[in-house]
């Protein structure tokens, strides 16, 4: 019972921890590792983390070796019933282990303050891109006020190089409850609060796709409020932007001829005019052609259902703001804030029953016929 019960375990434990930590760093290529920074804020935070880790490791080594030594050296020997000398304290020693920690804290605090102020109070350069991020249960809305573009769930940013800096300055807010924007490789997280605007910035230095997710519990589907950031070359970014812009007008004109309602595209279609006459109404109106599974009929169904209360499709009467903007749905790789790949099959299954993908998400199953779902899917597939 007195045979070194704790003797080896702390060392084993420490080396295990060191090993696991190295393994973590070696896996820095993992998509959400905080040790693989790709922006200035993330790199600053990363460098600071190594500094703090190093100091902590030294403290741990020092304290734990003293502890192990004391436990080994001063364990009671068998058959020794005498009491050790009683020592009540020592002012000098106690002062030393008060003052040394104070010095360590001064160093840690100054190191932290340098990064804290340089990141949080960085002045916004004139070349900065403005992005407004709005959190919703359980998806992301991205607005580019400089370009009049609205996107969802997949944020596109231009790469920001030393020679041509183009940092993104984000204003973050929420439409409902508290969320938190976190893409680890592009920087730390910032909360999105209703009734308040927070700010953060990032300057992604390498093109590619970065992932993250909501980091503040926001309800049943917090886990599937995933987040993607595509960092594009300046040209690709410009192409994406103009794609998102150009299509609006184009689609608007192209659809005006398709839409059945005379007031299509007007700004006040809050109530779908034919709301009660939903199921199979188009089929009743005219023969086979009108019930074909095509985009035209899909648009009719879409606009006659409550879909348009929540979703916007530019150039049509659909201008709801509660759900994601669908104008360029097919330019996105995923559905439902990353819960599924954006394939025609998934799209139709999602429309039929969103809670099969995300139980508790706020989009209801509309209980349409399979044919109507297929028609809507056909329509949505045209929203490039």
């Amino acid at each position, binding site marked *: 019972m007195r045979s070194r019960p704790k003797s080896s375990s702390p060392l084993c434990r420490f080396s295990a921890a060191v090993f696991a930590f190295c393994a973590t760093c070696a896996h820095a290529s993992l998509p959400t590792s905080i040790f693989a920074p790709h922006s200035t804020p993330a790199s600053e935070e990363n460098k600071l983390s190594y500094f703090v880790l190093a100091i902590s490791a030294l403290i741990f080594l020092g304290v734990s070796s003293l502890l192990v030594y004391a436990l080994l050296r001063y364990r009671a020997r068998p058959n020794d019933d005498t009491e050790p000398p009683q020592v009540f304290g020592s002012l000098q020693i106690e002062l030393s282990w008060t003052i040394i920690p104070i010095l360590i804290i001064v160093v840690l605090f100054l190191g932290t303050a340098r990064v804290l102020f340089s990141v*949080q109070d960085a002045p916004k350069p004139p070349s900065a891109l403005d992005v407004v991020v709005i959190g919703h249960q359980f998806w992301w809305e991205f607005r580019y006020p400089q370009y009049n573009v609205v996107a969802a769930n997949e944020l596109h940013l231009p790469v920001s190089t030393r020679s041509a800096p183009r940092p993104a300055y984000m204003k973050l807010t929420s439409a409902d409850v508290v969320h938190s924007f976190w893409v680890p490789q592009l920087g730390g997280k910032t909360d999105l609060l209703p009734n308040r605007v927070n700010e953060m910035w990032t300057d992604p230095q390498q093109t590619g796709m970065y992932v993250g997710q909501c980091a503040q519990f926001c309800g049943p589907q917090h886990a599937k409020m995933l987040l993607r950031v595509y960092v594009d070359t300046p040209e690709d970014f410009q192409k994406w932007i103009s794609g998102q812009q150009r299509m609006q007008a184009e689609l608007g004109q192209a659809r005006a001829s398709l839409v059945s309602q005379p007031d299509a595209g007007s700004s006040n279609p809050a109530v779908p005019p034919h709301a009660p006459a939903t199921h199979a109404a188009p089929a009743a109106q005219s023969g086979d052609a009108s019930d074909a599974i095509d985009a035209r009929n899909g648009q009719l169904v879409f606009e006659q259902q409550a879909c348009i209360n929540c979703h916007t499709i530019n150039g049509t009467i659909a201008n709801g703001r509660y759900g994601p903007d669908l104008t360029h749905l097919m330019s996105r790789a995923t559905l439902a804030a990353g819960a599924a790949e954006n394939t025609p099959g998934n799209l139709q299954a999602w429309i039929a029953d969103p809670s099969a993908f995300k139980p508790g998400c706020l989009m209801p199953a509309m209980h349409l016929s399979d044919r109507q779902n297929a028609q809507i899917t056909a329509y949505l597939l045209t929203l490039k």
Partner: protein
Amino acid sequence: MDGQSMPAAQGIEGALDRTPAHSARGTYLEVVHSWIVTVDHKKLGILYIAYALVFLLVAGVEAMLIRIQLIRPHNDFVSPFTFNRLFTMHGTTMVFLVGMPILFGFGNYLVPLMIGARDMAFPRLNAFSFWIAAFGGLLLYYSFIGGVGLAGTGSAPDVAWFAYAPLTEKAFSPGHTVDYWAVALLASGIGSIGTAINILATVFCMRCKGMTLLRIPLLPWLYATTSFLVLVAVSPLTACQAMLLIDRYLGGHFFDTQAGGSAILWAHFFWIFGHPEVYVLVLPAFAFANEIIPVFSRKAIFGYPAMVAASVGIGFISLGVWAHHMFTIGLTSFGNAFFTLSTMLVSIPTGIKTFNWLATLWGGKIRFETPMLFSVAFLFQWVIAGLTGIMLSVSAWNWQLHNSYFVVAHFHYVLVGAIVFMIFAALYYWYPKMTGRMLDERLGKWHFWLMVIGFHMTFDFMHFPGLLGMPRQIYTYEPDRGWNTLNFIVSIGGFIQAIAILIFVYNLVHSYFRGEEAGPDPWDAWTLEWATSSPPPSYNFATDPQVASRRPLWDLKHPEDPDSAFE
């Protein structure tokens, strides 16, 4: 008597009635009745501990279900709704129905005995506090039957234990589960405040003759600090629960952001409670370590005045650090810097305590019985928990770490690695005093080693998914993030801890009937609770003890070298 010739020990001799107390046996109903109407601090202490242990098992089952769900990505063992309830109830239960009651239980039992008093200052307030807190716990669990949660999906709070507004407002939580949560915490908060008043009054007004402030054993000192913190910190919690209920039922808009309320206001209120709460829980754990480590090192605690000052210092500093839970919420850079510094400052008094424990071991003759094993593990784990705490206080890095599994690992290191381990140590140490029988040492070793292995598998490895970007409170995760193996190990560790705890429960029951007779002073200890029989009579001491030093029983056992000669 020969006590006359030993002035230092003179006062205790008279108190040394060491015949075990045999409570009168009655019918089954009479026994139950006696426990319900009791105002005896020892019986209430045991009630608190038993109540907390029951909820420890309940919260443990919830934790196991959580870990089964997270054992692999895209698992569908439980629905997201159930999962959200499980972690909300696990957190709320562990803090309010396990941590607080069990610590108050030990406080109730030990504080009067250690200061040579016959009961708490307000015995009936004591009983009231227990029963109202117990009512709070039952109310919280009644919500499984009576409440409707988010999205109208039934039963039990599902808004996380810190219940950030506006998720708790009517618009987002239309059912009644948030009401159960708020009212249950209000009720148990009233109980906590009652007990805190009681402990403060007891420590400062009920000490036996000769026990000056600087002769109080460290445990009552730390309980006084904790009680002060409870008084200051539970009040804002009670206030914000009241405000939340006003929002939900009387048209208030404190946190109702849709009508101009503030989500940050809730966060401030909750964490002004929430952070000191961590110290409310950890100071009693320190208190146990302060009693157990010296006895098993066979040395007086090193630097007693510094230990008292450090504990009281932790109490004060911890009231000024709450916004380190809010580094990502949008404070100004100055605000972030302030709370970085104030949080780091906590490490100075805690460092002093750690080094003093180390110095207590130094030069001792350390005996490794089960209470000491748990205390030694506590020391290691506390050092690591403190260091990850410093990492989290680095606000610029905290932007990455906040709300990740790194935070979950950190606070479990504190709550399990430090607090639960010290609760086990305390149970092994004082169980003989409470029941008159020793806990089984062999089962204790099994319990300890399984617990250590399980704990480190779970909580060491839990840091890494956090560093790899895994947020907390998610019911499932994507398979391509590198979290899979780590989560698997974490879950297996959890199951090992569950086995350890089952062994412990068996030990508690088995030893109550079959345990070795403990006698009044099985550990050869020095504080007053060991001067009376095990279990102590309802009046504790036959005559009021009188002390001349911090270790009255040392003086008694070592008349040639009494502490009182040096104080």
